[in-house]
């Protein structure tokens, strides 16, 4: 059984059709990249999978390990193991990052039927993961994403990803706004999380991220559909030739 199975998915925002019959299958252990021109619906796909309320699904299915995702609340999807690394992580004033992480970890653990982590266990867990991502303790004391640099925000997303131990990770333009050093740290963080029982969907506009997170499968998305699928070499081809060929393809 595929980890993530998307069939003929159609969705719109207000009156605008954005996804127009998208098919996608990600097996456990695989890393898929979705590339495509601006406005092709890449971010919409990530929001629809995560259950953002402004997006209305008008047709098709999406399942995680065979379970209908579209029927679930956003937090239930998270508990089932779907994680979305946001392109623009949200600031939460007044809430210390550490508090946020702990609340999230325990909320998810509880929904999965696991014991909540004790404070010392949690702190150990966070410190270990934070260190791998070069995140300072000071950053965890600051309010969630408030005043964080672009790099700090993205590293914080990957930290959350590693703490919540998801099955299916969707990264929405995680490379945007990152310099090369920050990009490496983030990519290393993702690579460390690659595992036999975990799938990745890496959404990006540029090939450069895929030099660091090498995908098994590359898809080209245009006008709300997957229009081409290939291996890692497809990313290089796109980098060389651009998206012009796909702008009018679908």
């Amino acid at each position, binding site marked *: 059984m595929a980890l993530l199975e998307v069939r003929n998915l159609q969705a719109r925002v207000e009156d605008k059709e954005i996804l127009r019959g998208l098919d996608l299958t990600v097996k456990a252990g695989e890393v898929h990249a979705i590339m495509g021109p601006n406005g092709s619906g890449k971010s919409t796909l990530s929001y629809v999978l*995560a*259950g*953002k*309320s*402004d997006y209305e699904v008008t047709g098709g299915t999406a399942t995680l390990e065979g379970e209908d995702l579209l029927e679930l*609340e*956003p*937090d239930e*999807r*998270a*508990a089932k193991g779907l*994680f*979305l690394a*946001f392109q623009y*992580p*949200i600031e*939460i*004033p*007044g*809430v*210390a990052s550490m*508090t*946020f992480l*702990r*609340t*999230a*970890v*325990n*909320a*998810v653990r*509880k*929904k999965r039927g696991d014991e*909540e982590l004790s404070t010392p266990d949690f702190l150990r867990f966070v410190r270990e993961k934070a260190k791998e991502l070069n995140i300072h303790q000071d950053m965890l004391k600051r*309010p969630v994403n408030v005043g964080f640099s672009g790099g700090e925000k993205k590293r914080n997303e990957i930290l*959350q990803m590693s703490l*919540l131990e998801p099955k299916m990770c969707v990264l929405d333009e995680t490379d945007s706004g990152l310099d090369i050093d920050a990009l490496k740290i983030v990519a290393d963080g993702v690579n460390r999380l690659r595992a036999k029982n975990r799938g990745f969907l890496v959404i990006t506009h540029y090939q450069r991220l895929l030099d660091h997170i090498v995908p098994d499968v590359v898809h080209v998305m245009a006008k709300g559909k997957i229009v081409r699928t290939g291996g890692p070499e497809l990313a290089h081809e796109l980098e060389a030739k651009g998206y012009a060929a796909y702008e009018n393809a679908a």
Partner: protein
Amino acid sequence: MPAVQETVERVKSIDVDQYKYGFETKIESDRAPKGLDESTVRFISAKKNEPEWLLEWRLEAFRRWKTMSEPDWARVKINPIDYQDLYYYSAPKTTAGPKSLAEVDPELLKTYEKLGIPLREQEMLAGVAVEGRSKVAVDAVFDSVSVVTTFQEELKKAGVIFGSISEAVKNHPELVRKYLGSVVPVTDNFFATLNSAVFSDGSFVYIPKGVRCPMELSTYFRINERNTGQFERTLIIADEGAYVSYLEGCTAPQRDENQLHAAVVELVALEGAEIKYSTVQNWYPGDSAGKGGIYNFVTKRGDCRGNNSKISWTQVETGSAITWKYPSCILRGDNSQGEFYSIAISNGHQQVDSGTKMIHLGKNTSSRIISKGIAAGVSQNTYRGQVSAHRKASNARNFTNCDSLLIGDKCGAHTTPYIEAKNSSAVFEHEATTSKISDEMLFYCRQRGLSAEEAVALVVNGFVKDVLQHLPMEFAVEAQKLIAISLEGSVG
């Protein structure tokens, strides 16, 4: 378990109308006939065996009250109150002076148990001081008459007087006579004047010179008798160099009728004294259609009468259908300080008009106001504050920060500051923000596994953190839970 999750579980365990304190205790009452005239005032005074001077004081207030009309400047809509349709005195019959817990009506003890006040309940009702834990003495006010007074011995050793104001009238008439009405004059305002005429009971605290009160003092108010106006009168005096921290927590059973609560709290801080007054208020706010609920029209004022004195108000207001409340400081003494930390939450059909007054009279006085208003549902939440410097109040300083948080798009938050400086050396700062819990923020939290309620609780607790940290520890934990409970159902 983190407070947020615990909160959510508590919220889920609440049934009808989200109000967990809506039960009624069956105790026989001894009450004055319905309505208000001079004979009611005399009835109350006689019931309490009051001295002649106090009866006269009440009667003067009553005569004055008849000439006054309700204030109409607050941003609240009030259904007309029929003052002749209320009972002005009600006492549980079993309270002919219980000397120990064993004599207390078990129904009363059960009521407090249901309130679910953990630590304090065990200690106060059992009267046991647990080693190593902060002790809290409780003068439990059931409707109008104090029934349980604990920790008396230890307080007595320190010379602290803590008990009901009725007892104080008997045992310390010189103190009561000297200070009663000296901060909130009999003629102050409609509700305070009404209170002066008919106050039933309340707490009295006196901390002698140089004494640091050995424990936090606490009172639970509870309105239980149907149609009983609640007219508490509290008087706290910190003599020179004294310190006291006083906690007040309120809950009330569910009612269909609106219940009027017009309390008066007076604080007097003499030279070098400090009073910290904290309130968590969770009276019945009315049902989801806006029916019922408490009218909370309270006059709270502190007088920094001596030089170098300090008064600090901290409040968490989550309940009541209508809140009209402005705990204030008169900074009379030179170098005196006033503080006001407030969290006011309105949900459903609640209306809140609350804030503070900082009246700078002495030299080098300073004040600080941190107000956090949270509006959800179709509620209206107004901060109203006055900061003024008298002509002679040189070097007066004030810092005001007033933030509003909106949840949903049918509620309102309003900020009405009055700032008046008659001395050119005054420095007054005012900051205000209004923000909204956005769908983006909620979605982000929910993508990380938090339910909608957990997400709101987390964001709101972040918003109010600056104020929560000014509450005594165990109160802060309770307040945090209360905040989440109050906002249950505000999203989704």
